[in-house]
Structure formats: C-alpha cells, structure tokens
C-alpha cells in the first residue's frame, strides 16, 4: 500500500460513521463505535440520538468517553435514566434503530463472542463478558459491527455465543422469534461487508482504498465471500478526517 494519508483504523471509523443517519437512535459502545457515532454527529448527522447503556440519552460529548459512564455523557445528555429503565423502556422497548457492537471473536454470520476463548469452564482467556450485547443484538432495529480484522478474531466457529447474529444463517433469527434485522453491516479496517440476501453470510461489498481481496482473506479465518459488484470505499474527506482527529486530540488531552 502507498501512503494514503489516513490509517486503516481511521478509515474503519469513518466508514462506520457514514452508515448512520440523522434520525437514527444509536446504542453506542466504547471504542470504535463511540468515535464513529460522534463523527457522524459532528458531520452529516447533527441530530442523531446517541444512547450509552449507563443511562445517558441524547449525549453530545466534546471528548470521547473512556468508559460508558463518564460524567461528560451525563453533562451533555438530554436526560439520564437509571440502568434498569435503560434496558426496559429504551432497549427492550424497541426504541433503538442501530446497535453498535464490537467483537473478540466473530463468525461469518455475525455471531459474536466476547465471553471466553476456549472452554467456558476452563478458559484459555477469560474475557469481560457480554454486558449489554446479548439484548442489544436482539432488540435493536439493526446491528452494525466494527472490528479490526485478524485470523484470531474472525473465525470459522466462535467459542461462545455471547450475541446472536444470524445464527447458522438463513432465517435462523426468524425461527427463534427474533423480529429485528440483526447484523446488516460489518465495518473492518479493510472492508465493508453486508449479509448476502438468502444466506445472511457476510460478503465484502466495498474494499477500503488500497486494500486487495487477498489482504481481506489473509486477515480472515473463514473463506471470504465477495459480492458481485465490489466498490471501493470513498477515502475519508478532509472534513471527516479532521473531525475524527480533532475528537481524538481533545480526548487525549482530556484523559
């Protein structure tokens, strides 16, 4: 790759931010999702509603929070509710249009593991667990997943179903009585993926600038499907890049 003037991480965040609309109500996790949501808010989606599971509704933080419960989120929120209310009225109540999730392990159907690597009872690595993710994955209108690609992370079979994506594919969600769309987009540092119509298996629909099909396959543990017409992700605009970098700079200065 030549020097593109931006990092794969920046491309991932900006590509994710573009998928958000002005009238979306987003359940935001920490890390890449938080950056993407706030870049969207600071560029093309000024009225987007950002919700963090700590109970803050309609936040507009000036710096990215280190945790989902930083004071900045409450200070800038339209309102802050208790955590039981957040999960009952707001998430389970079906008010979230987009849930943003990350993954330690991900499979081709968008199922996510953030619980353990290895056997649950005698794990190789004990991860933090699901937190809000199991019900975010089921109750949000649709799910966007962001993660950096790696052979360790994108696997043939995940060790624990922390969040249900499309299960074994096809209409598996429907068969379980889950009436939301599930993962509709996977944004990695290399590409944008969407589930194929029938199978619901993720296929690459757009490669980030300078990324080849081989790059994607080399960093994915399953045999990658590519859509018929693959686009190139438009590179970050100056505004997008500047917005993201300013946000990160303010964040670094603050923490």
């Amino acid at each position: 790759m030549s020097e593109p003037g931006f990092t794969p991480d920046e491309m991932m965040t900006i590509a994710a931010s573009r998928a958000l609309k002005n009238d979306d109500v987003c359940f935001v996790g920490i890390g890449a999702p938080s950056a993407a949501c706030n870049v969207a808010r600071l560029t093309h989606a000024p009225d987007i509603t950002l919700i963090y599971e700590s109970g803050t509704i309609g936040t507009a933080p000036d710096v990215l929070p280190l945790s989902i419960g930083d004071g900045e989120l409450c200070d800038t929120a339209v309102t802050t509710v208790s955590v039981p209310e957040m999960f009952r009225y707001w998430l389970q109540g079906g008010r979230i249009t987009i849930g943003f999730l990350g993954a330690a392990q991900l499979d081709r159907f968008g199922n996510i593991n953030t619980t353990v690597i290895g056997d649950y009872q005698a794990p190789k690595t004990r991860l933090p667990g699901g937190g809000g993710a199991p019900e975010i994955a089921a109750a949000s209108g649709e799910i966007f997943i962001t993660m950096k690609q790696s052979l360790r992370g994108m696997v043939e079979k995940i060790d624990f179903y922390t969040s249900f994506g499309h299960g074994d594919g096809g209409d598996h969600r429907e068969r379980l009585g889950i009436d939301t769309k599930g993962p509709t987009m996977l944004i990695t540092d290399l590409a944008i993926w969407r589930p194929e119509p029938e199978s619901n298996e993720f296929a690459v629909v757009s490669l980030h600038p300078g990324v080849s099909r081989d790059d994607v396959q080399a960093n994915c543990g399953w045999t990658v499907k590519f859509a018929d017409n693959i686009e190139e992700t438009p590179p970050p605009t100056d505004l997008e890049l500047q917005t993201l970098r300013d946000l990160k700079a303010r964040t670094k200065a603050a923490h």
Partner: protein
Amino acid sequence: MATFQSLPDAVSENLHDGDTVAFEGFTHLIPHAAAHEVIRQGITDLTVVRMTPDVIYDQLIGVGLVKKMIFSYAGNPGVGLLRRMRDAVEKGWPRTLELEEHSHAAMANAYEAGAAGLPLAVLRGYRGVDYSKVNDNIKSITCPFSGETLAAVPSVQPDVTFIHAQKADRKGNVLIEGILGVQKEAVLAARRSVVTVEEIVDDLDAHPNACLLPHWTVTAICTVPGGAHPSYAHGYYVRDNANYIAWDRISSDRDTFLAWMDEHVINATPQEFAGRVEELRTQA
C-alpha cells in the same frame, strides 16, 4: 432508620463472612473506600454481585475474599480485562472463583425485581445465546396472554449493598445525581445497606423527582470524602482515568498487586481518599 457511623463500624456491623454483597456503581460513584475497608477487615467467603465488576472486584478477588461472583461485564472500563479475576478463573489463584454470568439486561431487571420484592425478573432476553448452557439460573416463563416465551432470572436480593452517593441530609436522606446506575435498586433490594457520602448537608436542595433514598431505607451512612476514587462523584471530582489505566500494569503481576494492596489498602485508612481526589476537584 439510618445510623451515622464510621466506615469501619458500618462494615463490621453489617457485613459478615459468607454474605452476599453488592458494591454497586456504574462507572460513576463506585464505593472504593467501602470495598477497601472490607479488605482491611478480611471479611471472606463472599458472594459478590455487580453488573460491572471492575477494579474493586479485581482487588477483592485478588486478595482471596471472594467465593462466587454474579455479574454481567467484568472489565476495566475503556482499558481492558481484569487481570486478578482472570488469574482466579484461569489459574485458580489465590482460590477458585465460581461465576454466575448474566447479561446487563438480566442483571438490571434482577435488581429491579429485588427492589420490587419479587422472586424473579421477566425479560425478553438471552435469545440464541449460550448463557443458559452455563448458568442454571436462566429459565423461562410463557406469557399466558401472547404465548411468548420470555426469559426469567432470580431477583438479586443481597444481604448488604454498599454504594457511594453525593450527599445526605442530617436525617439520613440520601441524594444521588447524574448517572444513577442501579444503586437505588441495589439498596432497596438489600436486607442492609451502607452508604458512603461526600458530605452531610442541612438541606439536600433536591429536585422533587430526584433519585433519593429516604433515611428509613438505609442502614448506615458514613462520611468519606473522595470515597469513590478513582471513580468519580458528579459535581465533586472527575474520574481518575490515569489511575484506571495504571491498574492494568499493577494487576498484571501477583507480587506487584500484593505490594500495591499492602501500601494503598491494607496500610491505609478511609480518611486518605480525600487527599486522592484533591487535584480532581477543580475539573468537576
């Protein structure tokens, strides 16, 4: 009726070996001083409950006081994993740790049900995931109206709940503002409760619909300025993010951890928390 007393007295009178205990706080208002006092008193064989066990649970586990943990997310928020908890789960050091693992939605509902005096919480949850394979306390009920199958979990009703709050008035009414977490529910669900506060005031000056615990719902109140550090108290001091980041290194090695605990917990007092937040007050 709330009793005003010292933190050491409140801990020794209310928490006993083998109890089920919640130290609640959702990033905000985490009762660090109370947990440190429990560690100093060596109260052991605890079942600890919390949605988001973080540094203080890592510390309680690391010194061997915890038998079982009921939880939904065990991480150092924004930093990474809990290394002492991992060591206990993966290597059994310093003792094995039994886990009862839930999702946030289930835990939040379980506290709510506990506060509501119900034996169970009902939610639309756990669909398609593996939790119920490793947790016998995830069952289901069928809605007699719609026929829908919904998840059921037992309510959380701890023997003791510890929380940190901004302030109490002289009668013992306690005010919590900002990010509320599940603290009100955790206190109302518990048999006994100990609340550390930043200060006691004449008048809470509270909004009519503020999150307030009447004095007769609280067992003990202890004034411990800075008692949430390195967590924060909205309006008093900000979160000590550097401290959380530093924990990742301190907790990565058993000896480093034990030495740090000796210096900062075992040989410290609740009064020292005030000094730890001194420089964090200006940003609040």
